[in-house]
């Protein structure tokens, strides 16, 4: 049995002293995240720079049966990078090169530490005719991590969840082999996952339990020359969701999003908004449209105006479209919504330090009901009903996110949040939604309704790929 000191020495042999972190004070940032999940202190953290270092690490971990937890920014809201079984955090932030951009094939080849901010800066400076999609996560979020966790971004309405933007990968398997998936396994180009068996799926949404991704090719998209972003104020949830549903199926918007009234008030400095007058807007919808010419943009705006006119004829009040530039003149805080990537400080830097959600993908036909019942549940538990929603993939499915800000140092409040989240989870599962970036406690709830053979296959694959169970143990209850 390897002692801690022996393990540390072997890690230093691989990474050098400076890139092996130990000691409770140094490791404290890795032991917790913003959520209500229990803190978990790892044994070490290491900061690899090369694939060979990761291979050596994986071989060492197999030999010593030491868990490895791959991580980058650690901003996921599901406790996915907490070392619940001890082990080594593999901090990939320093593997952060944009290795190549192919403007004809429209993809970028990146290392796992490349963030959305880096990508934006690089494309704006060097490839302005191309764009990427950006989430509402902080700009220092890892692109690879978000794609692997099947996150979403501001062009997911057109292009679906971000795992779909992975053209191929290079990964270190849990047994130390380096594998390529996608066209790069055969061709020098990383243009697609087709037409090969899709082994990329062995890493998507597996939460780091099947290997460590060391390179990823992500799809880039043409960058239209004309853009317009506007807000619409809706006075009740059903009309807001009807508006978003209708617009999403018209194939004219790049992005449609909705945030509840609580987010608006938080932007104006109300810490815990619980009160809404009957006449106040209940939901703020934003639309993002683009075009290759001013004429195309005008035509799209006109189509949206037509929809608003139809709502008006039915006596459904919707205020807008209000250009985001105009709202930003009132308060610069709204600039957060004018350009992505962005930093939603009113959520991330809230005074209590706690942020969690039940964030789901689900059926558009149950969207309104999920929003209404979820909001009621949050109020019942004493929390502001903060929702952020988006239609995806042309309206084929939707995001329903029920977000709670709380005081992390108040044990009672943490327990309340856990109870709320458990009830919200039951609600969304009942309606056919699935929490994405799934925390382990939610997987327990899945078991009641998950196809038995689906989970059996997951276990079989995990056992085959990771016989010593070193990769992020406990996630997916694997």
């Amino acid at each position, binding site marked *: 049995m390897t002692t801690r000191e022996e393990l540390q020495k072997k890690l230093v042999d691989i990474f050098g002293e400076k890139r092996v972190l130990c000691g409770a004070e140094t490791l404290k940032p890795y032991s917790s995240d913003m959520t209500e999940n229990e803190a978990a202190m790892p044994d070490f953290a290491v900061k690899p720079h090369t694939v060979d270092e990761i291979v050596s690490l994986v071989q060492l971990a197999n030999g010593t049966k030491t868990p490895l937890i791959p991580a980058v920014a650690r901003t996921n809201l599901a406790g996915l990078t907490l070392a619940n079984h001890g082990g080594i955090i593999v901090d990939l932030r320093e593997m952060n090169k944009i290795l190549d951009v192919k403007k004809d094939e429209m993809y970028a080849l990146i290392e796992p530490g490349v963030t959305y901010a880096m990508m934006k800066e690089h494309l704006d400076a060097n490839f302005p005719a191309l764009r990427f999609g950006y989430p509402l996560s902080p700009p220092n979020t890892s692109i690879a991590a978000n794609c692997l966790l099947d996150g979403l971004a501001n062009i997911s309405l057109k292009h679906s969840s971000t795992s779909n933007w992975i053209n191929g990968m290079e990964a270190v398997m849990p047994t130390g082999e380096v594998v390529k998936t996608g066209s790069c396994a055969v061709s020098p180009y990383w243009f697609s996952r087709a037409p090969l068996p899709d082994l990329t799926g062995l890493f998507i949404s597996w939460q780091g339990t099947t290997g460590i991704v060391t390179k990823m090719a992500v799809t880039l998209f043409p960058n239209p020359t004309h853009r317009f972003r506007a807000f619409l104020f809706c006075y009740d949830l059903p009309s807001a969701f009807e508006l978003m549903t209708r617009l999403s199926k018209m194939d004219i918007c790049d992005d449609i999003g909705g945030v509840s009234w609580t987010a608006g008030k938080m932007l*104006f400095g109300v*810490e815990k908004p619980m*009160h809404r*007058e009957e*006449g*106040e807007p209940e939901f703020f919808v934003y639309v993002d449209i683009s075009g290759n010419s001013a004429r195309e943009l005008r035509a799209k705006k006109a189509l949206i105006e037509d929809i608003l006119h139809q709502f008006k004829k039915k006596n459904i009040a919707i*205020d807008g479209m209000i250009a985001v530039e105009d709202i930003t003149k*009132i308060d610069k805080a709204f600039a957060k919504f004018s350009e992505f990537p962005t930093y939603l400080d009113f959520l991330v830097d809230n005074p209590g330090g706690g942020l969690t959600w039940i964030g789901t993908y689900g059926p558009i036909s149950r969207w309104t009901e999920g929003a209404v019942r979820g909001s009621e549940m949050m109020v019942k538990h004493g929390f502001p009903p903060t929702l952020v929603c988006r239609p995806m993939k042309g309206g084929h499915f939707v995001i329903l996110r029920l977000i709670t800000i709380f005081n992390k140092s108040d044990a009672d409040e943490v327990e309340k949040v856990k109870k709320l989240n458990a009830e919200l989870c039951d609600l969304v599962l009942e309606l056919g939604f699935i929490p994405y970036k799934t925390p382990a406690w939610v997987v327990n709830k899945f078991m009641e309704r998950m196809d038995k053979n689906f989970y059996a296959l997951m276990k079989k694959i995990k056992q085959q790929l990771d016989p010593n169970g070193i990769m992020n143990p406990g996630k997916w209850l694997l």
Partner: protein
Amino acid sequence: MMNEIKIVDKENANIMTLMIGRMIERNLQHEKTSEKIKNVNAVIALFCGKMSATLIIENGNVTLKSGAAQNPSATVEGSLKDFISLGAGKSFIFPVLTRGLKIRGNALHLLPLLHMFKSQDEQ
């Protein structure tokens, strides 16, 4: 001397009050605006659909609260879009002429309001 705005019961204020409060707060940072309202006394009711707010200016001190005062010296009624447009520095003339923005009462009392609303970039 630069004035500040006081928003009564901010935690329970409606979004219209918060928005207008922020507009005015931003502009009161400028001495020019404070100068223009320092001798003004007015009570202005603002209506937006079912929302309302009252703006009280007393010798240049500004208070804003949700709900409409009983006997304002002037009223302004419009949509959120109209108020935001004013705050973004757009002209009030077209919305008034097309009855998008409805003004009643003592028009003189509304002049300081326009100064407080208008984006400082436009002044």
